[in-house]
């Protein structure tokens, strides 16, 4: 029997392909909860619109940010910045209307707006 360790599978890959070992950074996130819904703000410096992958699957929100590749002249003299891409997963409140989730990214800050579903108006049912 093969024991296969659980690894992060990249979206779009077939499951029988060997998944690449990828290390991700967890972005710092602020979540605001309002009556109309939630606002998620995730910090992903170095990530532009093209590098963003946002998926909703089965009540789970997956945010992935790929950094654009930097090449600076000369040698690295001092490093603090971690070069990894970002990833964070959230379980969504079932009250959220997933079809109405919007996202925008500005200066490395991703803002996701997750509105709650509008309350269904009371419906009168006619009796046959």
């Amino acid at each position, binding site marked *: 029997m093969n024991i296969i360790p659980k690894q992060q599978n990249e979206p779009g890959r077939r499951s029988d392909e060997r998944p690449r070992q990828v290390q991700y950074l967890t972005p*710092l996130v602020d979540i*605001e909860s309002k009556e109309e819904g939630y606002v998620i*703000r995730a*910090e*992903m*410096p*170095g990530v532009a619109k093209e590098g963003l992958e946002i998926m909703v699957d089965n009540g789970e929100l997956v945010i992935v940010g790929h950094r654009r590749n930097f090449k600076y002249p000369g040698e690295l003299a*001092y490093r603090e910045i971690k070069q990894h891409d970002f990833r964070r997963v959230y379980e969504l409140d079932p009250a959220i209307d997933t079809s109405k989730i919007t996202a925008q990214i500005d200066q490395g800050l991703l803002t996701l707006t997750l509105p709650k579903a509008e309350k269904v108006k009371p419906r009168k049912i006619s009796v046959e």
Partner: protein
Amino acid sequence: MNIIRYRYPQSDFSFAFDSLASMHEELDRVFESTFGSGFRPLGTLTRWTPALDVYQDKDQFTVVAEVPGMKKEEIDISLHGDTLTISGERKSHEKQGDQAFRAERFFGRFQRSLPLPSAVDTEKVKATYKDGILEVVLPKAEEAKPKQIEVSLS
């Protein structure tokens, strides 16, 4: 035979940053032993300390800082002698009545100062802010660039 002359004896950038790097290492070690790895150094727990990288080649220094979610007008860059200071203030989005479900991001003032090991041409310093990354390019002053001196046979 070529002789290369530098302005300062410590042309090696790592010397200037050894103190910063060793401070980080020391703090990491202290915190690893008490709290386990992955814990941030004390100053960064309560204060915003943007991460930065420094690159250098013979013509310039490039300082890269991660400061996402700001407007370029909110970032200040100043040069005093050979010390570069990057600072700014980020205001919070919170208004009255909003509930913060989770708050991890830092707000308020930040400041990072960097002593540079050689002189820079202050007039030619350029900075760009893109995707939350601030890039400051500091061309070295002419006297600070490595020069080749030809030895002639007399």
